[in-house]
C-alpha cells in the first residue's frame, strides 16, 4: 500500500488503490436478484431498458478473465429470442385486445371444444405492445441471472455453501466437470466406430455408440469415487445418535413448516397464522438443522472468499433497487406498469429511476478485477518487481 500511497506518487483521477480481488459470489447474486425482483414488478420499457443498461455497464466493468466471463452476450441474445418468440406467438394466437387493428391474418377455424383459443384473426397494435412489454420483462430477468453467472463464479458459490450441504456441493462441482468429459467420450467413440467401418448415424448406430460411452463413464465415475474416498471425502465426526436424530427431526419440521407457510402466504383463504409465522418457524428450524448437521462434517475451505464491507454494500444496493421499485409501484402505479388500453406513453418515476441507477454503483464500488494501471510510468516498475519475485 505504501508504494501507492498518496505521498509518493501523483495519482490521476479515477485511480483505484484497492488491490484486485473477486467479490464474494453471494454478494453479486443478491445484487442481481434484487434487480431481477425490481424487473419482475414493472412492465415499463423505460425502466426495463434502464435495468438492462445497468447490467451491461456493471458486467463490463467487473467481469473476471475466466472463459465463461464472455458469455453475457449469449444471455442477451437469449433474451432477444424470447422477445421475438413472445411477439410471434401473440400475433398467431392473437385474440381481440384493443382497437388499433394493424393487419388481419386468415383465421383458422377450430372445433367447438377449443373455446377461447383462436389462431389468426385481427392483430392489433395493443397486442404487439403488450407482447413486447412482457417479452422485455422476461429478457431482463434472463439478463439478471446471466449477469450474476458472469460476475460470480458458480463454482466459487458452491464452495461457500454451509457445511451440512458440503457433500451435495461437491457432487455438483463434479457434475460440472464431468459434462465436458462425456461429450469428449461420445466424440471419441464415434470416431472409433468409423474405424470398424460401422455406421455413425441413425438409430441402429446407437448401441454401438451408447455402450462404450456408458461403460466409459461408469469406469470413470468409479475411479473418481475411489479417488475422492481416498482423499477423505465423506469423513464424518463422531456425533452421538441422539444429536443425529434431533438434526433429522429439525430438518423435517423445517421443510414442512416452510412448505405449509408458503402455502398459507399465497392462499388468501387460509387463516393468517398459517402464513408468515409458520414460514418463519420453518426457516428457523431448517437453519438450526443445517447448523447442527454442519457440525457433523469436519472440513475447512481453502482461500475462502471473505465477506467484507464491499460485499455488504453491493448486496444492500441490490435490495435497495428492489425496495425502490416496490415503493414506486405503490406511489405511481401508472408509471411502473404503463397502461396499454387506453395507450399511454411510458414515463419515468423518480423513485424507481433512482433505485435502478443506484445499482450502477457496484461498477465502481466493487473491488477491481485487475490492478488498476493509471499510467505507463506506474505500471512498468510494478511489472518488473513481479517478475523478479518469480
Amino acid at each position, binding site marked *: 500500500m505504501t508504494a501507492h500511497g498518496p505521498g509518493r506518487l501523483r495519482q490521476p483521477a479515477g485511480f483505484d488503490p484497492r488491490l484486485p480481488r473477486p467479490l464474494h459470489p453471494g454478494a453479486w447474486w443478491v445484487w442481481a436478484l434484487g434487480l431481477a425482483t425490481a424487473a419482475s414488478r414493472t412492465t415499463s420499457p423505460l425502466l426495463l431498458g434502464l435495468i438492462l443498461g445497468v447490467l451491461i455497464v456493471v458486467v463490463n466493468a467487473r467481469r473476471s478473465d475466466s472463459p465463461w466471463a464472455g458469455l453475457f452476450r449469449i444471455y442477451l441474445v437469449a433474451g432477444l429470442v424470447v422477445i421475438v418468440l413472445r411477439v410471434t406467438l401473440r400475433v398467431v394466437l392473437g385474440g381481440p385486445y384493443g382497437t388499433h387493428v394493424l393487419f388481419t391474418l386468415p383465421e383458422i377455424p377450430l372445433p367447438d371444444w377449443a373455446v377461447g383459443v383462436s389462431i389468426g384473426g385481427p392483430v392489433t397494435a395493443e397486442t404487439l405492445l403488450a407482447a413486447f412489454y412482457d417479452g422485455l420483462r422476461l429478457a431482463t430477468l434472463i439478463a439478471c441471472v446471466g449477469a450474476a453467472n458472469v460476475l460470480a463464479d458458480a463454482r466459487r458459490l458452491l464452495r461457500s455453501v454451509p457445511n451440512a450441504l458440503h457433500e451435495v456441493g461437491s457432487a455438483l462441482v463434479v457434475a460440472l466437470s464431468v459434462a465436458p468429459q462425456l461429450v469428449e467420450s461420445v466424440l471419441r467413440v464415434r470416431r472409433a466406430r468409423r*474405424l470398424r467401418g460401422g455406421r455413425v448415424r441413425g438409430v441402429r448406430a446407437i448401441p454401438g455408440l451408447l455402450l462404450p460411452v456408458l461403460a466409459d463413464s461408469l469406469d470413470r465415475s468409479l475411479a473418481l469415487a475411489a479417488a*475422492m474416498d481416498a482423499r477423505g471425502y465423506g*469423513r464424518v465426526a463422531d456425533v452421538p445418535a441422539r444429536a443425529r436424530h434431533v438434526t433429522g427431526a429439525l430438518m423435517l419440521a423445517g421443510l414442512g413448516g416452510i412448505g405449509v407457510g408458503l402455502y398459507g402466504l399465497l392462499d388468501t383463504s387460509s387463516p393468517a397464522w398459517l402464513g408468515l409465522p409458520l414460514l418463519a418457524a420453518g426457516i428457523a428450524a431448517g437453519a438450526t438443522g443445517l447448523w447442527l448437521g454442519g457440525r457433523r462434517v*469436519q472440513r475447512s*475451505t481453502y482461500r475462502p472468499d471473505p465477506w467484507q464491507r464491499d460485499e455488504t454494500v453491493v448486496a444492500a444496493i441490490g435490495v435497495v433497487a428492489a425496495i425502490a421499485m416496490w415503493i414506486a409501484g405503490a406511489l405511481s402505479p401508472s408509471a411502473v406498469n404503463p397502461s396499454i388500453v387506453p395507450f399511454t406513453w411510458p414515463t419515468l418515476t423518480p423513485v424507481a429511476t433512482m433505485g435502478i441507477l443506484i445499482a450502477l454503483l457496484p461498477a465502481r464500488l466493487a473491488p477491481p478485477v485487475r490492478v488498476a494501471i493509471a499510467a505507463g510510468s506506474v505500471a512498468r516498475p510494478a511489472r518488473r518487481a513481479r517478475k523478479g519475485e518469480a
Partner: protein
Amino acid sequence: MSAIQVHGATVTYAGAPHPALSNVDVAIDQGVLCVVAGATGSGKSTLLGLMTGNVPHFTGGRLDGRVLIGGRDTRTHPPRELADLVGRVGQDPLAGFVADRVEDELAYGMEQLAVAPATMRTRVEHMLDLLGIADLRDRPLRTLSGGQQQRVAIGAALAAGPRILVLDEPSSALDPTAAEEVLAAITRLVDDLGLTVVVAEHRLERVIGYADQLIYVAGGRVTSGAPDEVLRGMERVPPIVELARLAGWTPAPLTIREARRLAPALLTRLVPAAAAQGGVAAAAPTPQGRPLLTSRGLSVTYRDVVAVRAVDLDIRAGVVVALMGRNGSGKSSLMWAVQGSGPRRAGSVAVDGVDPANLDPAAARRLVGLVPQTPSDLLYRETVASECTQADHEAGAAAGTCRALLANLLPGVDDAQHPRDLSEGQRLALVLAIQLSASPRVIMLDEPTRGLDYAAKARLAVILRSAAADGRAVLLATHDVEFAASVADRLIMMAQGEVVADGPARDLLTASPAFAPQVARILAPGPWLTVPDVAAALVPVASGAVLP
C-alpha cells in the same frame, strides 16, 4: 515400526473361483521406495488396493488376515479414515481430479481433513514448489499435459500430509522425458521427506534403479526383498538385468551408471560387425520397390493449434515403423489423418494409389486399419464370440476369420467372456484381430504397449513382425523405447507436429539421449539395442560365463 504390514492376507473377490492373493505377508519400512512388479492379472493391483484400504472397502470381496497401515487396521478404517496417512495416485490422473483448477485440486484433500486455512495456504505453496508446478497454479486441469497432470495428482495426494504414497503405474501414459520428471519428483520425496512410496510399474526398467525394496507378485503369491535378490527369481526382467545375466554380472547392476562400469569387459567380447546382423530388428532385409503408403504435405490443425505440419511419409510394405515423440507431438493426429477418419487440414495420402479419406469407412479400413489409444472404444458386444462374428460381418470376411485371427494372436481367450473383463493384453489382441479381419494393407497402432506386461509385449512384437512379413506396413506410435528397439526397423521422430528425424531405428535410438534403450546406453557408443543383439554379437569364451 513398519509403515505397512500385511499379515497372512488372502483376498477373494465375489464369484471368483480362486483368491486373487493368498496368504500374503509383506512389511514395508518407513522411508522406503518399494516397487511392486508382476504380470497383468497377477494380483498386483489387489495388493496395492490393500495398502490404501481400497480393497475390500471399495472393490468388495473377502479379506482374511490383517493389513495395518501406520498401525491402523484397514478392516475398521475405510479409505477416507486413512486419508491423512496414505495418499493414492491412479493410472489416469484426469479420472481422479475433483476440482478444475490446479490450486483447488491441491487443496481438496486438505479441505476434507479440515486443515486450518493458513496451513493449507502454505502447504499448497510448498507442493507447487516441490513438484515444480508453480507456473501452472491457475491453469484448468484439462489443459495440462500428461506429465503435468500426473505431477499435480501427486502433489494433491501429498498436500494432505500423508506418510505413505501409493502410485499405480504413474508413468504408463507418459513419454520417456515426462516419466523421468515424475520419477525424479517421486525419488525426491523419498530422499528429502522420508516418505514411504509404493509404486506399481510394468516398465520396471524405468524405476528399478531407484528401488530399495521389490515386491514381485505372481499367481497371487508374493516375494519381497532387496531388488537384486527378488529379480533373480523373476522370469521376465528389465533389459539391464537380462544383460547382466548374459554377461554373468553378479550382483546384477540396477542403474545404468553401475552397469557402465562393468561394460568395458563385455565390450571386448563383442564382435562389432555381427551387430548389424544380430537381433530381430535387423533381421528383415531392407525392402525395395515402391512405397505402399505415401503422404504429401499432410497437416492437421485444431482451432489455433497446428498438430501436424506438412508431413511427408513414404512407407514400404514389410516394414515396422515406430513413431516416437513427446506427449502432444502430433503422433496420434498424424495416424488418424492418414487413416482418413480424423480431421485433416491439407495434404494427401495414398495407399496403393488410393486415399482412404475419399472412401467410405468400410472401404477405408481395408486400406488402413487403426487400433486407437483406447482400444475398448471399438468394442460394444456382450461376448468375445459375438464381437468376432460382428467383425466378420462388418469386414465382409468369411465367418470365423476374426476368431481364427484372435486364436492365432493370443490363444486361450474365453469366447463367453465380456470384452470389458479381458485383460489389457487380451483386449488389445481382440481389437487387433477385429482390425486385421478386414485384412488392411497398412496397420497402425496407437500406444499399444500401455498396460502390457513383458510377456504380452514380447508376444505383440512377434505379432507385429509377422504382420510385416505378410507384406503389410506396420506403423506404431509408442513411448516405450525398449519395445520400439525390439520391433522397429525404422523410426520417425516427431516434435511440434513435424518430422524431425527419419531413419533406421538402430541409428536414431542409439543417438537419442532421451529415447536410447538401456542396452544402448550401457554399451554406448556400440550399435546394440537389445539383449538378443548383444547375444548374437557375443564371442563364446571358454570360461563358461556365457549362457547356453
